[in-house]
């Protein structure tokens, strides 16, 4: 009961956030200097009649506030508009592309957590000793490397030099057939289809973009976790546990780690958001057919609807992720009450 009320409140609180984001988005995209009508028609078909009818078709003949209200009405019906450069409704385009982005970000998220949590603990425990210094070099590099540059570097080393990675073009090798779409996640769909070779190809394609995307945020998690662990290790109850002769491993993982994890988990929501943002760059570098690449293409083609759809989609996903993160606090720290 309590949980449901909390859930509902959070969802209601999300509405002004999405609305605010829409207002910002809308005003900003409507003062675009380029003319999308000309872009769609091209110089050959830009007769005054064609322009006028196209403007009408796209709803650009109304004033901006009216356009906004019409747009909101559409949104409530789940209609994100028509994407002219892709030739499909925006919602359809985003939904068909989202699995690619979701697969990439989730894979990156797993890589990130698997590597950064142990590194954070080691770094916090061996503070200012060799392991910590080595990890520090790694984290400083991680936060200061441009994501897209790292991606290109990995392509050079693992594709060009070593020949270990596949060419950075999409989600499956050209020789492999796409499996029937069940979830849209290729790692799942290939297994459902029982095509193990395709599964390996999908995994193979995923590794470089996954690592690229994970790197920056990995560094941030390691730094946060290290700082929190250092603070936790100075707490009285840790000293007491040491005095009682409890093994250091048990202290570290049963007591310190769990308490130090909370601020890190607080960040995970923001980090998933940042992964979705970073996915834009990674998708461009690896020609990964996800929503980020679609957003960049929409900008290039002055496709209002596409870009707006991407932002709306993004805000909603972000709100959902944050809700899940808030709920997970309770699991990690029972003292946190849902209010």
């Amino acid at each position, binding site marked *: 009961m309590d949980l449901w009320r909390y859930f509902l409140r959070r969802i209601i609180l999300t509405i*002004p*956030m999405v609305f*605010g*984001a829409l207002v*910002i*988005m809308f*005003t*900003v*995209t*409507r*003062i*675009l*200097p*380029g003319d999308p009508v000309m872009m769609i028609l091209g110089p050959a078909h830009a007769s005054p009649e064609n322009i006028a009818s196209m403007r009408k078709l796209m709803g650009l003949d109304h004033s901006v506030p009216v356009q906004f209200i019409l747009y909101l009405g559409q949104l409530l019906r789940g209609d994100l508009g028509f994407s002219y450069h892709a030739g499909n409704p925006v919602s359809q385009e985003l939904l068909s592309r989202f699995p690619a982005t979701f697969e990439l970000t989730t894979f990156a998220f797993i890589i990130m957590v698997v590597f950064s949590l142990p590194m954070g603990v080691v770094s916090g425990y061996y503070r200012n000793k060799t392991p910590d210094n080595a990890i520090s070099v790694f984290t*400083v*590099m991680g*936060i*200061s*490397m*441009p*994501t*897209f*540059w790292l991606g*290109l*570097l990995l*392509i*050079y080393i693992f*594709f*060009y030099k070593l020949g270990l990675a596949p*060419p*950075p073009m999409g989600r499956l090798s050209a020789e492999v057939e796409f499996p029937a779409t069940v979830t849209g996640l290729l790692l799942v769909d290939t297994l459902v289809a029982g095509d193990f070779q395709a599964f390996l190809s999908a995994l193979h394609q995923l590794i470089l973009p996954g690592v690229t995307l994970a790197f920056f945020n990995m560094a941030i998690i390691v730094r946060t976790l290290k700082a929190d662990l*250092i603070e936790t290790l100075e707490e009285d109850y840790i000293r007491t546990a040491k005095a009682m002769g409890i093994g250091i491993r048990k202290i570290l993982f049963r007591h310190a780690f769990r308490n130090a994890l909370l601020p890190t988990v607080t960040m995970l929501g923001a980090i998933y*958001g*940042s992964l*979705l*943002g*970073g996915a*834009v*760059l990674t998708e*461009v*570098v690896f020609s990964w057919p996800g929503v980020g690449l679609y*957003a*960049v293409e929409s*900008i*290039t083609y002055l496709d209002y609807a596409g*870009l707006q759809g991407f*932002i709306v989609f*993004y*805000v909603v996903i*972000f*709100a959902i992720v944050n809700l899940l993160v808030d709920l997970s606090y309770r699991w990690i720290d029972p003292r946190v009450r849902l209010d």
Partner: protein
Amino acid sequence: MREMEAEQKTRTDTDSLRYKFKLFIKNRLALVGLIILAVVFVLVAFGPTLSPYDAFGTDFAVKLQSPSSAHPLGTDNYGRDVLSRIFSGARHTLLAAVISVVIGLVLGAPLGVISGYFGGKVDLISMRGVDILLSFPPLILAMAIVSGLGPSLLNAAVAIGISYIPIFARVARSRAVQVKRTDYVQSAIALGSSRARIILTDVLPNSMTPLIVQATIYTGYGILWVAALSFIGLGAKLPTPEWGLMISEGRQYIITGEWWMTVFPGLFIMLGVIGFTLIGDGIREVTNPRLRLK
């Protein structure tokens, strides 16, 4: 008596700028940061003069050459000298990053101070707005804004600056809330100082340190975002030797093994970010005695 005097002396010493600077220099990482930044600033100021070649001078006879003694960092697909382009381009990337921080600071800090000092409804409403802005990662927000303003390096800087507003507003707000509770502000209120006066003479100066730390670190991140926006075509335009744009130009050649067009501008980006981050951390450590003791 003499002891007390001595104690007084050391106390003022630990607060003096000279002492803080000494501490700062002692911190080896901060010193490295300072050296890196000195190099970067020399490039910003004298980049084109220091360049051995013209950053825009194409020469197809020497296109796509790997690093050699004539061209230490190689040449690009137009035969332009990569080293010269990096030197000449420092000012584009760096200035855009600095502009973004200035915008974030100038708009964000007063918002945070006012919000924190007055509290109540003002605080609630402005912080809601800040939360909305914060819900976008800088890149997504900047994509939205730049697509509205039209792609250019300045617009990229403005967009990143807007995405920085919530960051500085948050920092300034939390300091303002703390400072407002201190005795000296409370006594200033009791003495009847005007709000404007208290904010200008007490709250703002006392919020400076954390703001400076954030400004330094976010200038570093600004380099990353500026380069990222240029990379996806929302920042500097060809043939500007902006570092992110250079990477984007080199992108198609990395698959065929011409790595120098991409690798070197990226290294300079990294260097710049590391410089600002180390300095920011250094200032934080010097000004926060708690961290210093550790």
